[in-house]
Protein backbone atom coordinates (compact mmCIF):
# COMPACT_ATOMS: atom_id res chain seq x y z
CA UNK A 1 0.00 0.00 0.00
CA UNK A 2 1.51 3.34 -0.92
CA UNK A 3 1.99 5.61 2.07
CA UNK A 4 -0.07 8.76 2.34
CA UNK A 5 2.54 11.51 2.32
CA UNK A 6 -0.09 14.11 3.14
CA UNK A 7 -0.54 12.89 6.67
CA UNK A 8 1.83 12.05 9.48
CA UNK A 9 2.37 8.31 9.32
CA UNK A 10 0.97 6.19 12.07
CA UNK A 11 0.69 2.44 12.46
CA UNK A 12 -1.29 0.59 9.77
CA UNK A 13 -3.78 -0.83 12.20
CA UNK A 14 -4.94 -0.13 15.69
CA UNK A 15 -7.67 -1.50 17.91
CA UNK A 16 -9.86 0.09 20.52
CA UNK A 17 -8.90 -0.97 24.06
CA UNK A 18 -12.62 -1.30 24.76
CA UNK A 19 -12.54 -4.61 22.86
CA UNK A 20 -10.41 -6.05 25.65
CA UNK A 21 -12.22 -4.45 28.54
CA UNK A 22 -14.48 -6.25 30.94
CA UNK A 23 -17.93 -5.23 29.64
CA UNK A 24 -19.67 -3.01 32.12
CA UNK A 25 -23.26 -3.83 32.99
CA UNK A 26 -25.43 -1.54 30.92
CA UNK A 27 -28.26 -0.04 32.89
CA UNK A 28 -31.62 -1.24 31.61
CA UNK A 29 -34.06 1.50 30.65
CA UNK A 30 -33.37 5.17 30.93
CA UNK A 31 -32.88 6.91 34.21
CA UNK A 32 -33.36 10.51 35.12
CA UNK A 33 -35.82 11.46 32.42
CA UNK A 34 -39.12 10.25 31.05
CA UNK A 35 -39.62 8.41 27.77
CA UNK A 36 -40.99 11.46 25.97
CA UNK A 37 -38.53 13.86 27.53
CA UNK A 38 -35.63 15.13 25.42
CA UNK A 39 -32.25 15.94 26.94
CA UNK A 40 -31.42 19.49 27.92
CA UNK A 41 -30.17 21.52 24.98
CA UNK A 42 -27.86 24.46 24.57
CA UNK A 43 -28.19 26.38 21.31
CA UNK A 44 -26.19 29.27 19.98
CA UNK A 45 -26.32 30.90 16.55
CA UNK A 46 -23.78 33.13 14.86
CA UNK A 47 -20.65 32.18 16.76
CA UNK A 48 -18.07 31.73 14.00
CA UNK A 49 -16.27 34.84 12.80
CA UNK A 50 -15.80 34.09 9.10
CA UNK A 51 -18.76 31.97 8.04
CA UNK A 52 -21.83 33.58 6.51
CA UNK A 53 -23.90 31.84 9.15
CA UNK A 54 -23.15 29.38 11.92
CA UNK A 55 -24.73 27.54 14.81
CA UNK A 56 -23.83 25.19 17.61
CA UNK A 57 -26.10 22.72 19.35
CA UNK A 58 -25.40 20.64 22.40
CA UNK A 59 -28.00 18.06 23.37
CA UNK A 60 -26.94 15.94 26.32
CA UNK A 61 -23.41 14.95 25.34
CA UNK A 62 -23.99 15.32 21.60
CA UNK A 63 -22.21 18.36 20.20
CA UNK A 64 -22.66 19.61 16.65
CA UNK A 65 -21.15 22.67 14.99
CA UNK A 66 -22.33 23.95 11.65
CA UNK A 67 -21.21 26.66 9.24
CA UNK A 68 -22.82 27.98 6.06
CA UNK A 69 -20.92 29.48 3.18
CA UNK A 70 -22.33 31.18 0.13
CA UNK A 71 -24.34 31.94 -1.82
CA UNK A 72 -21.49 31.87 -4.27
CA UNK A 73 -21.57 31.48 -8.02
CA UNK A 74 -21.73 28.00 -9.38
CA UNK A 75 -21.48 27.14 -13.05
CA UNK A 76 -24.96 25.66 -13.09
CA UNK A 77 -25.81 22.66 -15.19
CA UNK A 78 -28.17 22.87 -18.13
CA UNK A 79 -31.46 24.64 -17.59
CA UNK A 80 -31.41 24.42 -13.81
CA UNK A 81 -32.77 27.75 -12.60
CA UNK A 82 -32.79 26.99 -8.92
CA UNK A 83 -29.80 27.35 -6.69
CA UNK A 84 -28.23 24.24 -5.31
CA UNK A 85 -27.59 23.13 -1.80
CA UNK A 86 -24.48 21.24 -0.84
CA UNK A 87 -24.39 19.39 2.47
CA UNK A 88 -21.44 17.82 4.19
CA UNK A 89 -21.83 16.05 7.51
CA UNK A 90 -18.78 14.63 9.21
CA UNK A 91 -17.96 12.97 12.44
CA UNK A 92 -14.73 14.03 14.14
CA UNK A 93 -12.36 11.04 14.49
CA UNK A 94 -12.71 11.12 18.26
CA UNK A 95 -16.46 11.75 18.34
CA UNK A 96 -17.69 8.21 18.87
CA UNK A 97 -17.46 6.14 22.01
CA UNK A 98 -16.00 3.16 20.13
CA UNK A 99 -12.95 2.97 17.93
CA UNK A 100 -11.03 5.89 16.47
CA UNK A 101 -12.01 6.34 12.84
CA UNK A 102 -9.47 7.91 10.54
CA UNK A 103 -9.75 11.21 8.67
CA UNK A 104 -13.13 12.57 9.75
CA UNK A 105 -15.28 9.88 8.20
CA UNK A 106 -17.68 11.81 6.04
CA UNK A 107 -20.88 9.93 5.76
CA UNK A 108 -22.30 10.37 2.30
CA UNK A 109 -25.62 8.89 3.32
CA UNK A 110 -26.04 11.23 6.28
CA UNK A 111 -25.11 14.20 4.10
CA UNK A 112 -27.80 13.23 1.61
CA UNK A 113 -30.41 12.93 4.34
CA UNK A 114 -29.39 16.33 5.67
CA UNK A 115 -29.73 17.81 2.21
CA UNK A 116 -33.17 16.30 1.61
CA UNK A 117 -34.39 17.49 4.99
CA UNK A 118 -33.20 21.06 4.47
CA UNK A 119 -34.08 21.50 0.81
CA UNK A 120 -37.82 21.59 1.43
CA UNK A 121 -37.43 24.63 3.68
CA UNK A 122 -35.29 26.78 1.38
CA UNK A 123 -36.39 29.13 -1.37
CA UNK A 124 -33.69 27.98 -3.72
CA UNK A 125 -35.44 29.56 -6.71
CA UNK A 126 -34.30 32.91 -5.27
CA UNK A 127 -30.66 31.95 -5.81
CA UNK A 128 -30.42 31.12 -9.50
CA UNK A 129 -27.15 29.51 -10.50
CA UNK A 130 -25.74 29.92 -7.02
CA UNK A 131 -24.52 27.43 -4.49
CA UNK A 132 -25.15 27.31 -0.77
CA UNK A 133 -22.89 25.04 1.23
CA UNK A 134 -23.58 23.59 4.68
CA UNK A 135 -20.64 22.16 6.61
CA UNK A 136 -21.63 20.24 9.72
CA UNK A 137 -19.23 18.63 12.15
CA UNK A 138 -20.18 16.27 14.96
CA UNK A 139 -17.66 16.87 17.73
CA UNK A 140 -19.14 14.32 20.08
CA UNK A 141 -21.79 11.74 19.29
CA UNK A 142 -23.79 10.67 22.33
CA UNK A 143 -26.81 9.65 20.29
CA UNK A 144 -29.23 11.50 17.99
CA UNK A 145 -26.42 13.30 16.15
CA UNK A 146 -28.26 13.46 12.83
CA UNK A 147 -31.38 15.23 14.17
CA UNK A 148 -29.14 17.64 16.07
CA UNK A 149 -27.18 18.31 12.88
CA UNK A 150 -30.38 19.07 10.96
CA UNK A 151 -31.60 21.60 13.55
CA UNK A 152 -28.12 23.10 13.75
CA UNK A 153 -27.73 23.39 9.96
CA UNK A 154 -31.15 24.98 9.57
CA UNK A 155 -30.32 27.52 12.28
CA UNK A 156 -27.02 28.32 10.58
CA UNK A 157 -28.83 28.86 7.27
CA UNK A 158 -31.25 31.23 8.97
CA UNK A 159 -28.33 33.01 10.63
CA UNK A 160 -26.79 33.43 7.19
CA UNK A 161 -29.93 35.23 6.07
CA UNK A 162 -30.89 32.62 3.49
CA UNK A 163 -34.51 32.95 2.40
CA UNK A 164 -36.53 30.13 3.83
CA UNK A 165 -40.11 29.12 4.61
CA UNK A 166 -39.45 27.83 8.09
CA UNK A 167 -36.76 26.41 10.33
CA UNK A 168 -36.24 22.67 10.12
CA UNK A 169 -36.18 20.86 13.45
CA UNK A 170 -34.96 17.29 13.80
CA UNK A 171 -35.90 14.66 16.35
CA UNK A 172 -34.69 11.14 16.99
CA UNK A 173 -36.44 8.23 18.63
CA UNK A 174 -35.63 4.66 19.52
CA UNK A 175 -37.45 1.61 20.74
CA UNK A 176 -35.81 -1.07 22.83
CA UNK A 177 -35.44 -4.58 21.49
CA UNK A 178 -38.03 -6.07 23.79
CA UNK A 179 -39.77 -3.28 25.63
CA UNK A 180 -42.41 -1.61 23.54
CA UNK A 181 -41.69 1.78 25.05
CA UNK A 182 -40.79 4.54 22.61
CA UNK A 183 -37.99 6.79 23.78
CA UNK A 184 -37.51 10.27 22.41
CA UNK A 185 -34.00 11.68 21.82
CA UNK A 186 -32.09 8.46 22.56
CA UNK A 187 -28.48 8.51 23.76
CA UNK A 188 -25.86 6.32 22.10
CA UNK A 189 -26.54 3.19 24.16
CA UNK A 190 -30.29 3.45 23.55
CA UNK A 191 -29.71 3.99 19.84
CA UNK A 192 -27.91 0.67 19.47
CA UNK A 193 -30.81 -1.40 20.73
CA UNK A 194 -33.58 -2.24 18.28
CA UNK A 195 -35.46 0.17 16.10
CA UNK A 196 -34.68 3.83 15.48
CA UNK A 197 -36.48 6.69 13.77
CA UNK A 198 -35.34 10.08 12.58
CA UNK A 199 -37.76 12.81 11.56
CA UNK A 200 -37.44 16.45 10.61
CA UNK A 201 -40.30 18.89 10.72
CA UNK A 202 -41.08 22.40 9.54
CA UNK A 203 -43.01 23.27 12.71
CA UNK A 204 -44.90 26.39 11.60
CA UNK A 205 -46.10 24.77 8.38
CA UNK A 206 -46.56 21.35 9.96
CA UNK A 207 -44.75 19.58 7.13
CA UNK A 208 -42.40 16.62 7.45
CA UNK A 209 -39.27 17.19 5.38
CA UNK A 210 -37.24 14.15 6.36
CA UNK A 211 -38.06 10.69 7.65
CA UNK A 212 -36.01 7.57 8.06
CA UNK A 213 -36.61 4.59 10.24
CA UNK A 214 -35.17 1.14 10.53
CA UNK A 215 -35.83 -1.90 12.68
CA UNK A 216 -39.16 -3.58 13.21
CA UNK A 217 -42.33 -1.55 13.67
CA UNK A 218 -45.41 -3.71 14.20
CA UNK A 219 -48.95 -2.47 13.86
CA UNK A 220 -49.44 1.18 14.63
CA UNK A 221 -46.18 1.75 16.49
CA UNK A 222 -44.75 3.62 13.53
CA UNK A 223 -47.62 6.12 13.57
CA UNK A 224 -47.21 6.63 17.32
CA UNK A 225 -43.48 7.11 16.79
CA UNK A 226 -44.01 9.74 14.09
CA UNK A 227 -46.35 11.63 16.41
CA UNK A 228 -43.87 11.48 19.26
CA UNK A 229 -41.06 12.77 17.05
CA UNK A 230 -43.25 15.66 15.92
CA UNK A 231 -43.93 16.59 19.53
CA UNK A 232 -40.20 16.55 20.19
CA UNK A 233 -39.64 18.90 17.24
CA UNK A 234 -42.30 21.29 18.48
CA UNK A 235 -40.66 21.40 21.90
CA UNK A 236 -37.29 22.35 20.46
CA UNK A 237 -38.67 24.96 18.04
CA UNK A 238 -39.00 27.91 20.48
CA UNK A 239 -35.46 27.31 21.76
CA UNK A 240 -34.09 27.65 18.23
CA UNK A 241 -36.20 30.75 17.59
CA UNK A 242 -34.92 32.44 20.74
CA UNK A 243 -31.29 31.81 19.92
CA UNK A 244 -31.86 33.16 16.42
CA UNK A 245 -33.39 36.34 17.84
CA UNK A 246 -30.45 36.68 20.23
CA UNK A 247 -27.94 36.24 17.42
CA UNK A 248 -29.70 38.83 15.28
CA UNK A 249 -29.76 41.30 18.18
CA UNK A 250 -26.04 40.81 18.69
CA UNK A 251 -25.39 41.45 15.02
CA UNK A 252 -27.63 44.49 14.68
CA UNK A 253 -27.66 46.51 17.90
CA UNK A 254 -30.89 48.28 18.78
CA UNK A 255 -30.99 51.84 17.46
CA UNK A 256 -29.89 54.38 20.05
CA UNK A 257 -32.42 57.12 20.80
CA UNK A 258 -31.33 60.27 19.04
CA UNK A 259 -30.20 62.92 21.47
CA UNK A 260 -31.12 66.54 20.98
Amino acid at each position, binding site marked *: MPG*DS*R*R*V*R*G*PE*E*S*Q*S*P*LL*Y*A*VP*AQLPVGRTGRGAGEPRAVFVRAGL*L*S*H*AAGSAYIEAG*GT*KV*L*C*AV*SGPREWGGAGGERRGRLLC*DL*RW*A*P*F*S*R*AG*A*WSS*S*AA*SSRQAGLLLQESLEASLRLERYPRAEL*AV*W*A*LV*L*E*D*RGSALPAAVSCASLALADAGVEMYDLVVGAGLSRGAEGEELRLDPDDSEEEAGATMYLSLLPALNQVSGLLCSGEWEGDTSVAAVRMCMEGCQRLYPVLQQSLVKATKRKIPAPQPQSG
Partner: protein
Amino acid sequence: MAAGFKTVEPLEYYRKFLKQNCRPDGRELSEFRTTTINVGSITTADGSALVKLGNCTVMCGIKAEFTNPPIDAPNKGYIVPNVDLTPLCSSRFRPGPPGEEAQVASQFIADVIDNSQIIQKEDLCIAKGKLAWVLHCDLICLDYDGNLLDACVIALVAALRNVRLPSVQISEDTGLAQVQLSSKSPLNILKSPVSTSFAVFDDTYIIVDPTDEEETLATGLLSIVTDEDGKLCTMRKPGGSALSPERLQDCISRAVSRHKEVQTLLDEVLLSVKTQ
Protein backbone atom coordinates in the same frame (compact mmCIF):
# COMPACT_ATOMS: atom_id res chain seq x y z
CA MET B 1 -14.87 56.27 5.74
CA ALA B 2 -12.39 54.08 7.59
CA ALA B 3 -14.07 50.95 6.30
CA GLY B 4 -13.73 52.14 2.72
CA PHE B 5 -10.07 53.04 3.21
CA LYS B 6 -9.47 49.60 4.72
CA THR B 7 -10.96 47.81 1.74
CA VAL B 8 -9.12 49.84 -0.89
CA GLU B 9 -5.73 50.18 0.77
CA PRO B 10 -5.50 47.52 3.47
CA LEU B 11 -1.74 47.75 3.80
CA GLU B 12 -1.68 51.54 4.06
CA TYR B 13 -4.48 51.28 6.61
CA TYR B 14 -2.37 48.97 8.75
CA ARG B 15 0.75 51.11 8.42
CA LYS B 16 -1.14 54.09 9.86
CA PHE B 17 -1.89 52.06 12.97
CA LEU B 18 1.53 50.47 13.28
CA LYS B 19 3.19 53.90 13.20
CA GLN B 20 1.25 54.69 16.37
CA ASN B 21 2.40 51.39 17.91
CA CYS B 22 -1.03 49.84 17.94
CA ARG B 23 -3.26 47.64 15.80
CA PRO B 24 -6.73 48.07 14.36
CA ASP B 25 -8.22 45.69 16.96
CA GLY B 26 -6.78 47.85 19.76
CA ARG B 27 -3.87 45.61 20.68
CA GLU B 28 -0.28 46.71 21.19
CA LEU B 29 2.33 45.19 18.93
CA SER B 30 3.47 42.60 21.44
CA GLU B 31 0.05 41.81 22.87
CA PHE B 32 -1.70 38.47 22.45
CA ARG B 33 -5.40 38.06 21.94
CA THR B 34 -7.36 36.68 24.87
CA THR B 35 -6.47 33.04 25.28
CA THR B 36 -9.18 30.66 26.49
CA ILE B 37 -8.64 27.01 27.30
CA ASN B 38 -11.33 24.43 27.97
CA VAL B 39 -10.22 20.95 28.89
CA GLY B 40 -11.95 17.57 28.85
CA SER B 41 -15.23 18.63 27.25
CA ILE B 42 -15.34 15.70 24.82
CA THR B 43 -16.11 12.59 26.82
CA THR B 44 -15.79 10.19 23.91
CA ALA B 45 -12.10 11.08 23.63
CA ASP B 46 -9.46 9.95 26.12
CA GLY B 47 -8.26 13.53 26.35
CA SER B 48 -9.48 16.75 24.78
CA ALA B 49 -9.03 20.50 24.81
CA LEU B 50 -10.59 23.51 23.12
CA VAL B 51 -8.34 26.53 22.69
CA LYS B 52 -9.33 29.99 21.53
CA LEU B 53 -6.98 32.80 20.60
CA GLY B 54 -9.45 35.58 20.00
CA ASN B 55 -11.60 34.11 17.23
CA CYS B 56 -9.15 31.40 16.21
CA THR B 57 -10.52 28.16 17.63
CA VAL B 58 -8.86 24.75 17.65
CA MET B 59 -10.22 21.54 19.14
CA CYS B 60 -7.88 18.68 19.97
CA GLY B 61 -9.22 15.22 20.72
CA ILE B 62 -6.98 12.32 21.60
CA LYS B 63 -8.00 8.70 21.31
CA ALA B 64 -5.68 5.96 22.53
CA GLU B 65 -5.72 2.57 20.85
CA PHE B 66 -3.71 -0.66 20.84
CA THR B 67 -1.26 -1.45 18.10
CA ASN B 68 1.90 -3.40 17.43
CA PRO B 69 5.08 -1.45 18.26
CA PRO B 70 7.20 -0.40 15.26
CA ILE B 71 9.59 -3.11 14.13
CA ASP B 72 12.66 -0.90 14.38
CA ALA B 73 11.79 0.24 17.91
CA PRO B 74 9.95 -2.56 19.74
CA ASN B 75 9.88 -0.65 23.03
CA LYS B 76 8.12 2.43 21.73
CA GLY B 77 4.59 3.51 21.01
CA TYR B 78 3.17 5.99 18.55
CA ILE B 79 1.89 9.51 18.79
CA VAL B 80 0.23 10.61 15.56
CA PRO B 81 -0.85 14.23 15.18
CA ASN B 82 -3.15 15.34 12.38
CA VAL B 83 -4.31 18.88 11.72
CA ASP B 84 -7.61 19.16 9.89
CA LEU B 85 -8.58 22.38 8.12
CA THR B 86 -12.10 21.91 6.82
CA PRO B 87 -14.36 24.30 4.87
CA LEU B 88 -16.16 24.73 8.19
CA CYS B 89 -13.45 26.99 9.60
CA SER B 90 -12.86 29.11 6.53
CA SER B 91 -14.16 29.19 2.99
CA ARG B 92 -10.60 29.13 1.64
CA PHE B 93 -10.32 25.41 2.38
CA ARG B 94 -11.87 22.75 0.18
CA PRO B 95 -13.19 19.38 1.28
CA GLY B 96 -11.11 16.32 0.54
CA PRO B 97 -7.61 15.22 1.51
CA PRO B 98 -5.50 17.64 3.59
CA GLY B 99 -4.28 20.65 1.65
CA GLU B 100 -0.89 22.32 1.77
CA GLU B 101 -1.45 24.36 4.88
CA ALA B 102 -2.89 21.41 6.81
CA GLN B 103 0.08 19.25 5.82
CA VAL B 104 2.54 21.91 6.93
CA ALA B 105 0.74 22.32 10.25
CA SER B 106 0.63 18.54 10.86
CA GLN B 107 4.34 18.24 10.18
CA PHE B 108 5.09 21.22 12.43
CA ILE B 109 3.18 19.62 15.31
CA ALA B 110 4.96 16.32 14.68
CA ASP B 111 8.31 18.16 14.82
CA VAL B 112 7.34 19.89 18.05
CA ILE B 113 6.47 16.53 19.61
CA ASP B 114 9.76 14.98 18.51
CA ASN B 115 12.02 17.91 19.38
CA SER B 116 10.56 18.87 22.71
CA GLN B 117 10.18 15.32 24.05
CA ILE B 118 6.74 16.05 25.51
CA ILE B 119 6.47 12.41 26.41
CA GLN B 120 8.85 9.55 26.02
CA LYS B 121 7.57 7.16 23.42
CA GLU B 122 8.91 4.32 25.59
CA ASP B 123 6.18 5.17 28.10
CA LEU B 124 3.59 4.20 25.51
CA CYS B 125 4.86 0.64 25.24
CA ILE B 126 2.79 -1.93 27.10
CA ALA B 127 4.56 -5.20 26.26
CA LYS B 128 7.85 -5.02 24.42
CA GLY B 129 7.50 -6.00 20.79
CA LYS B 130 3.88 -7.01 21.30
CA LEU B 131 1.60 -4.24 22.36
CA ALA B 132 1.82 -0.47 22.50
CA TRP B 133 -0.43 2.55 22.70
CA VAL B 134 -0.99 4.75 19.70
CA LEU B 135 -2.23 8.22 20.55
CA HIS B 136 -4.30 9.61 17.69
CA CYS B 137 -4.19 13.37 18.24
CA ASP B 138 -6.68 15.05 15.94
CA LEU B 139 -6.56 18.82 15.83
CA ILE B 140 -9.58 20.31 14.11
CA CYS B 141 -9.74 24.00 13.38
CA LEU B 142 -13.27 25.27 14.05
CA ASP B 143 -12.76 28.92 13.28
CA TYR B 144 -9.75 30.10 11.31
CA ASP B 145 -8.43 33.52 12.24
CA GLY B 146 -4.66 33.46 11.97
CA ASN B 147 -1.98 32.04 14.23
CA LEU B 148 -3.17 28.47 13.82
CA LEU B 149 0.13 26.97 15.02
CA ASP B 150 0.11 28.62 18.47
CA ALA B 151 -3.45 27.51 19.08
CA CYS B 152 -2.65 23.96 17.91
CA VAL B 153 0.36 23.58 20.21
CA ILE B 154 -1.55 24.82 23.25
CA ALA B 155 -4.49 22.53 22.40
CA LEU B 156 -2.18 19.54 21.96
CA VAL B 157 -0.37 20.06 25.27
CA ALA B 158 -3.61 20.71 27.14
CA ALA B 159 -5.24 17.60 25.66
CA LEU B 160 -2.19 15.42 26.37
CA ARG B 161 -2.20 16.56 29.98
CA ASN B 162 -5.91 15.68 30.09
CA VAL B 163 -5.42 12.12 28.79
CA ARG B 164 -6.29 9.31 31.18
CA LEU B 165 -5.37 5.82 30.04
CA PRO B 166 -6.89 2.66 31.51
CA SER B 167 -4.51 0.20 33.11
CA VAL B 168 -3.62 -2.85 31.04
CA GLN B 169 -2.38 -6.25 32.10
CA ILE B 170 -1.27 -9.02 29.81
CA SER B 171 -2.95 -12.23 30.85
CA GLU B 172 -0.38 -14.99 31.29
CA ASP B 173 -2.72 -17.77 30.20
CA THR B 174 -4.05 -16.37 26.97
CA GLY B 175 -1.46 -13.71 26.15
CA LEU B 176 -4.29 -11.28 25.54
CA ALA B 177 -4.60 -7.83 27.00
CA GLN B 178 -6.97 -7.18 29.87
CA VAL B 179 -8.18 -3.63 30.20
CA GLN B 180 -9.34 -2.20 33.50
CA LEU B 181 -11.52 0.78 32.75
CA SER B 182 -12.04 1.54 36.43
CA SER B 183 -8.42 2.49 37.11
CA LYS B 184 -7.04 5.21 34.89
CA SER B 185 -3.82 7.14 35.09
CA PRO B 186 -2.46 10.25 33.37
CA LEU B 187 0.45 10.28 30.95
CA ASN B 188 3.90 11.22 32.13
CA ILE B 189 4.28 14.66 30.54
CA LEU B 190 7.91 15.72 30.65
CA LYS B 191 7.81 19.05 28.89
CA SER B 192 5.15 21.46 27.84
CA PRO B 193 6.25 23.40 24.81
CA VAL B 194 4.52 26.64 23.86
CA SER B 195 4.65 28.23 20.45
CA THR B 196 4.79 31.98 19.90
CA SER B 197 4.21 33.35 16.42
CA PHE B 198 5.24 36.69 14.98
CA ALA B 199 4.48 38.55 11.79
CA VAL B 200 6.86 41.04 10.21
CA PHE B 201 5.48 44.13 8.48
CA ASP B 202 7.54 46.00 5.90
CA ASP B 203 10.75 44.50 7.32
CA THR B 204 10.40 46.79 10.33
CA TYR B 205 7.43 46.19 12.57
CA ILE B 206 7.19 42.90 14.39
CA ILE B 207 3.83 41.95 15.85
CA VAL B 208 2.83 38.87 17.85
CA ASP B 209 -0.21 36.64 17.42
CA PRO B 210 -1.22 37.84 13.94
CA THR B 211 -4.85 37.56 12.86
CA ASP B 212 -5.78 36.08 9.50
CA GLU B 213 -5.80 39.55 7.97
CA GLU B 214 -2.40 40.41 9.39
CA GLU B 215 -0.93 37.13 8.19
CA THR B 216 -1.97 37.82 4.59
CA LEU B 217 -0.56 41.36 4.66
CA ALA B 218 2.69 40.50 6.48
CA THR B 219 5.99 40.23 4.68
CA GLY B 220 7.34 37.49 6.91
CA LEU B 221 6.21 34.99 9.53
CA LEU B 222 8.09 33.42 12.41
CA SER B 223 7.15 30.78 14.98
CA ILE B 224 9.29 29.99 18.01
CA VAL B 225 8.61 27.04 20.30
CA THR B 226 10.19 27.07 23.74
CA ASP B 227 9.91 24.81 26.77
CA GLU B 228 9.71 25.69 30.46
CA ASP B 229 13.49 25.92 30.81
CA GLY B 230 13.53 28.64 28.19
CA LYS B 231 15.17 26.30 25.69
CA LEU B 232 14.31 26.47 22.01
CA CYS B 233 12.52 23.40 20.68
CA THR B 234 11.55 24.33 17.17
CA MET B 235 11.79 27.43 15.10
CA ARG B 236 10.01 28.01 11.83
CA LYS B 237 10.63 30.91 9.51
CA PRO B 238 9.27 30.21 6.05
CA GLY B 239 11.11 32.81 3.93
CA GLY B 240 10.00 36.43 3.82
CA SER B 241 11.71 39.42 5.42
CA ALA B 242 15.17 38.88 6.81
CA LEU B 243 15.66 39.46 10.54
CA SER B 244 18.78 40.68 12.32
CA PRO B 245 20.12 38.49 15.17
CA GLU B 246 19.23 41.22 17.70
CA ARG B 247 15.63 41.35 16.61
CA LEU B 248 15.41 37.56 16.64
CA GLN B 249 16.77 37.63 20.20
CA ASP B 250 13.96 40.03 21.11
CA CYS B 251 11.44 37.61 19.66
CA ILE B 252 12.91 34.74 21.65
CA SER B 253 12.67 36.75 24.87
CA ARG B 254 9.02 37.48 24.10
CA ALA B 255 8.47 33.76 23.44
CA VAL B 256 10.00 32.90 26.83
CA SER B 257 7.73 35.35 28.61
CA ARG B 258 4.71 34.08 26.63
CA HIS B 259 5.54 30.57 27.76
CA LYS B 260 5.13 31.64 31.39
CA GLU B 261 1.73 33.22 30.65
CA VAL B 262 0.41 30.13 28.91
CA GLN B 263 1.89 27.78 31.48
CA THR B 264 0.14 29.62 34.33
CA LEU B 265 -3.15 29.57 32.45
CA LEU B 266 -2.81 25.87 31.64
CA ASP B 267 -2.00 24.93 35.23
CA GLU B 268 -4.96 26.94 36.44
CA VAL B 269 -7.38 25.32 33.99
CA LEU B 270 -6.16 21.78 34.62
CA LEU B 271 -6.30 22.30 38.37
CA SER B 272 -9.88 23.55 38.16
CA VAL B 273 -10.83 20.42 36.20
CA LYS B 274 -9.24 18.18 38.81
CA THR B 275 -10.92 19.83 41.76
CA GLN B 276 -14.37 19.60 40.17
